[in-house]
């Protein structure tokens, strides 16, 4: 692990918390915004497992570098549909383990908020399926002020007056635009640069990464059996 902060950090960013299979290589300097050197994004909710590593390798091939040139890894930690989310988390973790590089998890809506960059209060809502959204609220300075949570859009709409948000970003915001009644910022999926920006402070400080734990927000669907099923009438 890096002990001394580097001046320039080459970061691999991945996210699989939305239908987008996202990978990118981003250069991070202390004095400027992150620069995307290469990115591959495919919107296909069923292809995370197949496409993520090929996307990572395509990004590196494009800039003529090897995976070993990467200084750190940033991974969106959700919330998002579980199966896809786990692909990104385990991929990032295994890459970090094999390359001996730190892996920084960042909440996916934090990256979307940075991408949206409105300068006002913002709601980020992604699709949680089952007619619910994952959401988080951000203040004018871009700091997360609430969330992430999972909720029905109508219930979220009732809370909006208390959240101080002027616009909304994310696929969930788009899907339930009528219910939420907020102007839309055209940012649906997190970008590699947004993911890296969300972890910039830790990356530049070579901070010790937090645990690589996904934000599930829901318990597994499972019901404990009550008594045994009879096959004959009592």
């Amino acid at each position: 692990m890096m002990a001394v902060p580097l001046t320039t950090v080459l970061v691999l960013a991945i996210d699989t918390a939305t239908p987008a299979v996202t990978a990118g290589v981003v250069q991070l300097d202390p004095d400027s915004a992150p620069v995307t050197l290469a990115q591959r994004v495919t919107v296909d909710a069923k292809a995370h497992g197949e496409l993520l590593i090929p996307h990572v390798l395509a990004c590196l091939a494009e800039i003529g570098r090897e995976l070993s040139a990467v200084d750190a890894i940033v991974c969106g930690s959700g919330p998002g549909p579980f199966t896809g989310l786990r692909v990104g988390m385990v991929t990032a973790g295994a890459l970090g383990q094999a390359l001996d590089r730190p892996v920084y998890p960042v909440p996916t809506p934090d990256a979307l908020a940075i991408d949206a960059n409105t300068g006002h209060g913002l709601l980020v809502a992604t699709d949680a399926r089952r007619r619910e959204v994952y959401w988080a609220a951000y203040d004018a300075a871009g700091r997360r002020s609430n969330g992430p949570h999972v909720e029905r859009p109508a219930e979220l709409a009732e809370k909006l007056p208390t959240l101080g948000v002027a616009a909304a970003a994310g696929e969930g915001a788009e899907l339930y635009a009528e219910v939420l009644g907020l102007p839309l910022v055209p940012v649906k999926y997190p970008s590699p640069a947004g993911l890296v920006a969300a972890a910039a402070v830790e990356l530049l400080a070579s901070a010790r990464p937090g645990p690589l734990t996904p934000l599930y927000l829901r318990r597994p669907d499972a019901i404990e059996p009550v008594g045994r099923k009879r096959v004959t009438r009592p």
Partner: protein
Amino acid sequence: MSRERIVLGIESSCDETGVGIVRIRHDGTLELLADEVASSVEEHARFGGVVPEVASRAHLEAMLPTMHRALGAAGVALKDVHSIAVTAGPGLAGALLVGVSAAKAYAAALGKPLYGVNHLAGHVAADTLEHGPLPSPCLALLVSGGHSSLLLVEDLAGKITEIGATVDDAAGEAYDKVARVLDLPYPGGPPIDKLAKQGNGCAIAFPRGLTGSRDAKYDFSFSGLKTAVARWVERCERSGEQVPVADVAASFQEAVADVLTAKAVRAAKDLGVDTLVISGGVAANSRLSALAAQRCEAAGIHLRVPRPRLCTDNGAMIAAVGAHLVAAGAEPSGLELATDPGLPVSTVQIV
């Protein structure tokens, strides 16, 4: 003679996260270097069966630590690995995806070939880690919570043919369901086996599924047996009699072991095969192995059963399939590898 190669195996098809490490020696034989397993079975117990989402979450938590432990146990570094094998199917979709995604990341980071392999081939290959190379052809009886099948194995790296399988419940599934009827804990295999030792296996004549003269010779059915046990117990309870649980357990176990071994021995005789391998979680059952030993000896069939640790799901058996593919010069699977929850056993490797 060729150089020694180290093959890593990753398994995550059900509720065990396994990482195994196998060395292909100069003479081509396999040496087991590490076999680390993290099981989520206790988290499923209160649900009476494997909950896929619970299993998938456990795989994600266990994957890196299990890899770390396996490398430590084998005394090898990831850079020493020649190739990586991973279970690509059959199994639970979300669970498989964790292992395959991890395996791809390891392969990409190390620049090593990746082999997406069949879980069932792994159960057969497990025996080569204990008893050496398998003769060709041989017959394999795979019995676990998810599978019950008879396989003709001509080449572990390529030719496995299913000649029979369960048409409904797997044998292990029947154990779990009967355990629930008898108020025994999940998984049902060990407690039924233990209780059966105090009972009489001939006490109750439970039905032997698919053993009629017109039934499929090598297929199994355990659903009717499970229902017959439940009916028998319920009739007992209704008439106010005390359920003779040890006799029920022993008689149920006798019916399962009888059908499995009778069909396996018959298949071996019909096909002129002289070696039978029994593997999978149910292979650890004491009555199944005792009856198989007795019937195989009578029929002149050489019986091979790996130790219980290798019979249940693990990464070493996947490394063993990988080692057979590497030794046979198979092409790697490529990093676009997709999982296949319904992968047929005839596909040993997804190319």
